[in-house]
C-alpha cells in the first residue's frame, strides 16, 4: 500500500507491501531511515529546523521540527525492531529560493540540524539529494529498502 507522509508527519512500517511517499519537499527536509535486516523503515517530513521556535507546537507535533522529528523517527524505527548500527539514512529536500539574502535559509538550516542529529546518533547519511531550488518527492519501499526521488515527472534511485 502507498502511504502518504504529509508535511510535519512521520510514518514507520514493517509491512513488505508498503511504500512510504512524501510530496513537495521544498525547503523542508525528508529523511528515509531503513534497517535492511529487520525490514523496517520510516519516513519523516520536517518543515522547520529548531523546536525552540515554538516549544508548544513541538510538543503537540514533534515532526514539524528537524531537531525533534528526526530523533522521533529514529526511536520509532528502533521500537519497531530496527537496530541502530544497521540503520541506513537517505535525505532529500533543503531547497532555497533564489537570491534570498539569507532570510529564507530554512533549507540549509534544516540540513545542518539534521546532520547534527544523525551524527549524535551515530548514523551516517548513505545518500542525499539536497539544495538547489527544486521541489522533490521522496519514496521508500519497505520490501527492498529502495529509496527514490521524483522531480519534474522523472524518478531515479537515491
Amino acid at each position, binding site marked *: 500500500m502507498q502511504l502518504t507522509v504529509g508535511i510535519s508527519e512521520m510514518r514507520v512500517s514493517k509491512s513488505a507491501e508498503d511504500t512510504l511517499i512524501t510530496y*513537495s519537499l521544498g525547503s523542508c527536509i525528508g529523511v528515509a531511515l531503513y534497517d535492511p535486516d529487520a525490514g523496517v523503515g520510516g519516513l519523516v517530513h520536517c518543515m522547520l529546523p529548531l523546536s525552540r521556535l515554538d516549544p508548544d507546537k513541538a510538543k503537540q507535533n514533534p515532526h514539524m521540527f528537524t531537531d525533534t522529528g528526526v530523533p522521533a523517527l529514529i526511536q520509532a524505527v528502533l521500537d519497531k525492531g530496527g537496530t541502530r548500527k544497521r540503520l541506513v539514512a537517505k535525505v532529500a529536500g533543503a531547497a532555497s529560493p*533564489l*537570491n534570498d*539574502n539569507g532570510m529564507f535559509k530554512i533549507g540549509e538550516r534544516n540540513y545542518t540540524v539534521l546532520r547534527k542529529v544523525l551524527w549524535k546518533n551515530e548514523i551516517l547519511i548513505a545518500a542525499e539529494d539536497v539544495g538547489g531550488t527544486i521541489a522533490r518527492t521522496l519514496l521508500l519501499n519497505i520490501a527492498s529498502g529502495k529509496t527514490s526521488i521524483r522531480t*519534474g515527472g522523472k524518478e531515479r534511485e537515491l
Partner: protein
Amino acid sequence: MSKREEILGRVPAIPPLPTSATQMLGLVGNPDTQINDVQRVVEYDPGLVSNLLRLANSAYFGTGGAINSVREAVVRLGIKRVFQIAMTSAVAPLAQQEIRGYDLPRNGLLRHSAATALAVEYLPKRLGMRVPDATYTAGLLHDLGKIVLGTYLEVDSAPITLMAYRENLSFELAEQRVLGTDHAEVGAALLEFWKLPEAVVLAVRWHHAPNSYPNEDRTVVDLVHIGEHIARICGTSSSTDGMNYSVCVESLERMKVSPDVIEQVAGDVLGSLEEICAIFN
C-alpha cells in the same frame, strides 16, 4: 499580434465568477450595504451557504461559539469576511482542478492559494500590524494566472521550467521570455475582467516584482510576495517551479520581517491549512 497580446486577448473567454461572488463584489464595495442584502445573495447559492457555514465554524474563521445560520455568519464575521469566504468558495472548484500544463496535481493550486491567503493574514498579525482589507483576497487569487495559462490556453510549462533552471532565472522571468507575459500579468488581467477591486488586481499583478508596484503604499503587495514564499515553505510548491523564485529583499526590509517571524508564520499556516482544505474535499 504578439504572443502576449494573443494570450491576454483570450482572458475574456474564461468562465465568469459565480453570480453570488459577482453580487458580493458589488455589495462589499458599497457603504450602504445592509446585512439583509448579503444574506439574500448568499442564500441564493446553496453551495456558498454550505461552505460559508463550514468555514464560519472553522478554527481559523470562527469567532468562538457555533454559527448556525447565514444571518448569524454575516453578523458575527462581518460583510468583508463573508465576501472573502464567498471568493474562496467561488475559486475553490477552479483551484482544485489538476492543471496539466503546469504539472499541478488535483488540489495543488488550492493548497498553495489557501496557504498564501493564510500567510498574508498571519504575517501582519505576527508583526503587530492591522491586516489590510485586500490582503486575504489578493493572497488567495495571486496565482490564478496559472489556471488561465495551464488549463485554458494549454501552455506547456516544460520549456519554461527548462529555461528557468538552466539559466538560473526566476520562473516568472522565464515565462516572460517564452510567452511574452507571465502568470502574474495574466492573473491580474483575469481579475480585472472579473471586476475585482484595484488593490487586489495590482497586488496580484506585481506579486513577483513588488518594487514595480505603481502606488506608494506597498503593504499588500509586500505581504503577498512574502506570504507566497512562506506558503512554499509549507510544502505547497509544485514540481514545475519548486522554489525557483527570487525573494525581493526590499519587501522584507519594508515589512521589517525577521527569519524567526517567517518560521513562526509557516507554523501558523500549517496549523490551519488542513482544516480549510478539508472543507473543499
